[in-house]
């Protein structure tokens, strides 16, 4: 009798309906905002692409699928009008979808955004290469192999960032890890007379900075954003101090800062595939390591016991503690493993590309990797995609900078403006791991 029986009565047919079910028909404001934002963005993109199309007089451009002109790879002419129309259609269709609020909300949304982005970029690049004034038209070279190389440190840095932050430790010091990694990779490679040993040197340096991050963040609870900034300053100062201490005597320099450089390894068979082969399978060891790292980090984080624990200490460390997980131990592991990837990323700037270390060799790529972590929503695959985007933009910047459609400085600023738009427009209020940046102290 009492409560339970009364409850039963209400459930009987004919009784008063339980007051669950849906509420009144009200359109969600968030949904309205989303639609408005999409219309604005797609509208601007459509206008720009339309302008590009109308602005072009002569649709023919010179292109090459190789990275430079050789006897086999002469520049080919290409009438881009059809391509421009395709781009225009993609953008306009997206705009219409936004106007009737039929933009999908699942994974297809991502596909649509990527399509619009690619269409815009393609139209932009074509617009730049058409109607050139010079006597000899500049050729559009295949940017993908170079983009893949430039992305390598960015991807590795982003993976390092994802690992740390998934475990709840903010890593702004990726740039510092890059600098230290680059320097010690050069030293190790020079000393051991082996480019591969340079990678080991990079790893050691990356892990070293990671260890400093770990000690001060976890042992001494230093604010982690502060810590990251200071560690970058430390790594910069320390390496430039050491660099000056390397005597200019070529005999000594040879032992300390004249590293061997990783050579390209063409993967038999695969490297012969047109475009793809050159892009993916004719690269250095470090690039191949990067491929493996993406899969490895994703697998570790989402398919293994260790990954489950890492994510749990980043989301709710106390919950992890109450089931007997040593929170700081797991965080240490993640931070140090992150150091391995960041150190490898740093090695790119010396043994992976130009060789000798110099101040500013990492060109603030560490901060771009950080942006990739956030744009990629703290997910290894997302971070990778964002890093690839940056790598592509940094590559294309070099080619477009030689043309005169728009000032080179604007092209230089493009990736950063794109980041601001992305962060402000699409990933503004993303959800970082809930305990990111909070030291764990027992009761």
């Amino acid at each position, binding site marked *: 009798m009492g409560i339970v029986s*009364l409850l039963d009565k209400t459930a009987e047919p004919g009784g008063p309906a339980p007051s*669950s079910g849906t509420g*009144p028909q009200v359109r*969600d404001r968030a949904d309205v905002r989303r639609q408005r934002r999409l219309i604005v963005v797609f509208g601007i993109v459509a206008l720009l692409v339309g302008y590009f199309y109308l602005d072009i007089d002569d649709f023919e451009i010179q292109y090459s699928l190789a990275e430079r002109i050789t006897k086999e790879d002469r520049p080919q002419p290409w009438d881009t009008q059809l391509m421009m129309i395709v781009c225009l259609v993609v953008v306009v269709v997206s705009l219409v979808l936004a106007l009737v609020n039929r933009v999908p909300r699942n994974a297809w949304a991502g596909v649509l955004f990527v399509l619009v982005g690619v269409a815009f970029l393609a139209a932009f690049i074509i617009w730049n290469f058409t109607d050139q004034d010079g006597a000899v038209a500049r050729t559009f070279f295949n940017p993908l192999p170079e983009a893949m190389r430039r992305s390598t440190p960015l991807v590795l840095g982003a993976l390092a960032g994802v690992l740390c932050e998934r475990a709840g430790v903010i890593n702004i010091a990726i740039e510092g890890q890059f600098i230290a990694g680059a320097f010690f990779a050069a030293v190790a490679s020079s000393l051991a007379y082996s480019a591969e040993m340079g990678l080991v040197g990079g790893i050691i340096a990356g892990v070293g900075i990671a260890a400093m991050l770990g000690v001060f963040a976890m042992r001494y609870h230093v604010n982690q954003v502060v810590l990251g900034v200071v560690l970058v300053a430390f790594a910069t100062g320390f390496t430039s101090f050491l660099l000056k201490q390397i005597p200019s005597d070529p005999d000594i320099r040879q032992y300390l800062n004249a590293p061997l450089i990783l050579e390209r390894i063409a993967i038999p068979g695969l490297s012969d595939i047109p475009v793809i082969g050159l892009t993916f399978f004719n690269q250095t060891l470090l690039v191949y390591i990067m491929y493996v790292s993406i899969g490895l980090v994703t697998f570790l984080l989402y398919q*293994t*016991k260790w990954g489950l624990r890492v*994510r749990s200490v980043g989301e*709710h460390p106390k919950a*992890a503690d109450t089931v007997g997980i040593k929170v700081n131990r797991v965080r240490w592991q993640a931070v140090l493993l992150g150091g391995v990837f960041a150190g490898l990323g740093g090695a790119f700037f010396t043994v992976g590309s130009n060789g000798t270390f110099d101040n500013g060799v990492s060109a603030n790529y560490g901060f771009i990797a950080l942006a990739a972590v956030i744009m990629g929503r703290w997910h290894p695959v997302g971070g990778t995609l964002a890093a690839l985007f940056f790598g592509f933009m940094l590559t294309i910047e070099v080619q477009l900078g030689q043309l005169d459609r728009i000032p080179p400085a604007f092209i230089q600023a493009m990736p950063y403006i794109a980041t601001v738009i992305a962060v402000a427009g699409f990933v503004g209020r993303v959800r970082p791991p809930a305990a990111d940046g909070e030291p764990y102290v027992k009761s």
Partner: protein
Amino acid sequence: MKLEIRGLTKRFGSFTANDGIDLTIEPGEIHCLLGENGAGKSTLMNMLYGLLDPTEGEIVVDGVPVSFSSPGDAIEAGIGMVHQHFMLVPVFTVAENVMLGREQTRGLGVLNRRKASHLVRELSERFHLAVDPDAMVEDLPVGVQQRVEIIKALSNDAKVLILDEPTAVLTPQEIDELMEIMRELKAQGTSIIFITHKLREVRAVGDRISVIRRGKVVGTAAPTASEAELAEMMVGREVSLRVTKEAASVGKPVLEVRDVTVIDPRGHQVVKNVSFEARAGEVLGIAGVQGNGQTELIKSLLGLVRPDAGQILLEGRDISRHGPRQSLEDGIGYIPEDRSHDGYVGGFSVRENLILDLYRHEEFSRGGALRLDEIRANAEARIAEFDIRTESASTPVSALSGGNQQKVVVAREFSRPLKVLIASQPTRGVDVGSIEFIHKRIVSERDKGTAVIIVSTELDEVYALSDRIAVMYDGRIVATVDPDLPREDIGLLMAGATTDEESTAR
């Protein structure tokens, strides 16, 4: 498993949270631990669970002294705990949460999610705890999340299960279900330590009752003891939650809410077509289990959330598009439910917190400059008037006790003329003395002719203060009733049942 606690003491600096506690939990019994908020129950359990190191004393399991340096050790020894604040990772699935710490793998550390789901299903069938192993925890209602916590503890083969204030977030019906589960567990041989400050529950389910006050065990009782006896043991003196108040002299409606709907960022309607009115000189209580839309409703009244549909009228003017600043200027007083989150700035001094929403008034600033003398005088006056126990007016509020922190908030809100007072959980985590004080002030504010809205999940508080009670369930006001309705019926309404009373007193 027999669990003994011998002379367990915990000190934080000069403060003794637990003082020489002795307890014995026999195998297969439900042992209730009764005590006020802040009596030291949670500290004791955290020591038992390896989250805190005892300063003195020992824990003995089946005659063998043990020491737990981490929860892992406690789990190993067969102790499981369901925490007051759930220890679940919101973005993990049920199965992931349950296996965390002792993961099912295919070897080489690769997760075996299927096996984990299977285990959850098995446990949920065996103990009649319905849960979907593949559901995301953040999508589950609190009652189900609690079941997940219990399954988590059981999956570790807990012989002694600690339930820390498990009923705080549940409807009366869910509480009944939980008690069924407790009896079921007991029948299968698990001992349970049931921590609560609710007398009714203790008597309904307990085998033995230990009462804790100010960090000490002050006595044990059988479940047959009367509520009055238990209450006196718990608080140390005879208390009554009844607030003496005159009959309300109800005036005209001040705040009218018409068909308000609020949608949360995830697209769920959390407030659905709610209409009511608050009248001058009357306390309207909004009862309901936590998470049924009260929070969002109140926030929309103050302008912290803009309603997606409907109107809010203050003395006939639509204020539904006003922000909090305008609402405050209009004469709405607000005591938020989570004071440390929304009510005060912890690092600010008492003095600064007392003008947190008044600093822009002529009285406290002029031409963009703060008037320090006036601010200081105001602080002295409020501290005296509201009996705020603080070392000085420049002490940071975060260093005050919960009751005094709340008094700072209350003092600030009462220090300007109000048309409407909205108080959400005004006495949560507040000591008994402060509760009485705050209740009295609320009633006297009503007597001044202010329309008062009280939101509370504590039915006792709603009963004690309200002249009318609106019950919220699933984003709706399911009924507005007089406070003489039996509490069982209100409990039913809180659980979503509708009654004939729905049509009354609208």
